[in-house]
């Protein structure tokens, strides 16, 4: 029983990391249809922001708290710049955004190698986050709990922004019918850029969280990006709850399978499960109903 609970918690914590990464993608891929392969490098940018900050701020706790908003701004600015330079020219051909942003991601990885060196670097976690707490025989690592809380807070904030603010209304209007939004006086280009800023900024926040569980390196984003895309594919577009449910479901599935088989076999089974799932719901778990034929 304890084993099952422990495995479930591991799964939930994998899910929390996936969720944090997939949240930004839900906006840029799910809502805008842009396959941004450089999302992983925005995660890396957030992680390196934490690293640089810790060089100047001695207290790990303070540096972590400052890093969260700062990484959001850094990664968000990179995303907005990318949108302005390249992606806005590619809205009519979404598949090509994948290759273009893959090119950008290659360059950003090399840039990180040139600035910070190829070997991985490490940050110190605040004392508060290094321990464990035990609840009913289940060991919960504090850093994992922190990531879980952070992920849920991000979901909450994003939901509130999308549902309750004028900006969120404009974003939803553009996603549902770009032309109608345009003639209603919404500056769709500015909405696009803002959406991209928020989505990429969330990748930066995910990067800060990842410094707590692993090393920081030029290729750290690549390890997560495909899994995160799968979360959005299975979750369905334009719905945050799809991503939330899928991230935790895939996390738990992966963790349980890893326990009963091996890491590599678990990956293959998860992929098969996803293809099988798409037979049942080709558009993902939740989807925005439109009248479009395609």
């Amino acid at each position, binding site marked *: 029983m304890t084993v099952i609970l422990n495995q479930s918690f591991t799964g939930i914590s994998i899910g929390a990391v996936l969720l944090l990464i997939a949240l930004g993608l839900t906006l840029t891929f799910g809502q805008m249809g842009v396959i941004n392969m450089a999302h992983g490098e925005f995660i890396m940018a957030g992680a390196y922001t934490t690293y640089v900050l810790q060089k100047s701020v001695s207290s790990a706790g303070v540096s972590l708290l400052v890093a969260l908003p700062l990484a959001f701004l850094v990664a968000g600015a990179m995303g907005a710049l990318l949108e302005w330079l390249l992606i806005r020219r590619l809205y009519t051909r979404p*598949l090509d955004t994948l290759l273009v942003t893959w090119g950008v991601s290659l360059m950003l990885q*090399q840039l990180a190698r040139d600035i910070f060196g190829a070997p991985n670097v490490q940050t110190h976690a605040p004392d508060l986050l290094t321990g464990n707490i035990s609840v009913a025989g289940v060991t919960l690592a504090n850093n994992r709990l922190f990531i879980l809380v952070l992920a849920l807070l991000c979901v909450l904030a994003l939901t509130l922004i999308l549902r309750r603010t004028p900006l969120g209304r404009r974003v939803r209007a553009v996603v549902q019918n770009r032309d109608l939004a345009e003639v209603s006086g919404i500056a769709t280009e500015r909405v696009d850029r803002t959406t991209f800023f928020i989505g990429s900024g969330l990748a930066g926040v995910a990067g800060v969280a990842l410094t707590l569980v692993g090393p920081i390196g030029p290729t750290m984003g690549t390890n997560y990006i495909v899994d995160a895309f799968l979360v959005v594919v299975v979750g369905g577009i334009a719905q945050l709850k799809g991503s939330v449910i899928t991230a935790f479901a895939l996390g738990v599935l992966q963790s349980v399978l890893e326990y009963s088989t091996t890491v*590599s076999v678990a990956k293959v089974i998860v992929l098969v499960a996803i293809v099988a799932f798409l037979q049942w719901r080709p558009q993902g778990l939740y989807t925005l109903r439109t009248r479009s034929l395609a």
Partner: protein
Amino acid sequence: MTTTTSPTETTSVVQPSVSLLERFRVPGAFLLGALLLLGVAPLVLSDFRLNLLAKYLCYAIVAVGVSLAWGRGGLMVLGQGVFFGLGGYAMAMHLKLADAADTGQRLPDFMQLYGTGDALPWWWSPFANPAFALAMTVLLPMAVAALLGFFVFRRRVKGAYFAILSQALAAALAIWLVGQQATTGGTNGLTDIQGFFGYDLNDPVNQRMVYLIIAAVLLLLMAAARQLFVSRYGELLIAVRDSEERVRFLGYNPANVKLVAYVVAAGMAGLAGALFVPAVGIISPALIGIVPSIGFVIGAAVGGRASLVGAVLGTIAVAWTQSTLSDAYPAAWTYLQGLLFVVAVGFLPGGLASLVTVLRKRRTPARTTGETA
């Protein structure tokens, strides 16, 4: 393809001189290419350069399939590494077993090293048979492609979803191969291959033979792909790319059309992987994961995905640039590679081949190629 017609010709009668030129343009170019690849290259290139060219031509064989599936069919095939790898591993497994048999061993060298016991894994045994192994280099990739393609296209899983799923497949296969150290050689892959159906690969003469086989296969597949392009099926494939719904309303099943292109492209990639093994002497997960899988489309994107010759020449050019630059300046190559993606796909979606069309368009309004969906 659109031919230039002078204003006086309102009927379909074309001037004989033009038609003669048009008629022999394609076979002429093909014969010239064959002459260069099979005749001139082995004469003027050193053993080392010829071996490098053999490797590039293997990538070019993959590009023929990419041009078919992506260029004509609009299917973004980001998992070609999977099929390349399946073909490569099928061939390498046979060659390893043959090598072991030559030296009187029962197991390939790496299996003895990792001490998995005396028995050959059951799924290795059939690969001792050369005919079975050769068939598997093509059939295995095609079967995997058919399986994934059937489930994905049948439920109309859309373009981006398909791209991500094929990418995830590449990741899963690479991770799985790494995890099975004892039976697949793990991260190292299958290395140190000595013989090729009884011929010693360390002998330069035999390496030339391998080169000639690869070049011949490439030329054959290009000819076959071109026939497919000009066939009724080729037109249908373009129609599916440009408007899947209309094709469906006309009574065809777009899923089947896409499936054929995907499976054929997979078979070509498998064959390329199988030929890569004797040419380079190694197959490993690092050659078939996500990064190389995306790498397989860059050449086609640079040269021109919709143009067969463009895709093949682009792939050879990119591979050549990579090996010249990446040894001396690895950082510079990475930046250049990234830039190639951005410029070729973002600003010149038809690739370098489209420059020809653009120049021609100034004279006659050519038909525009549709967007990939």
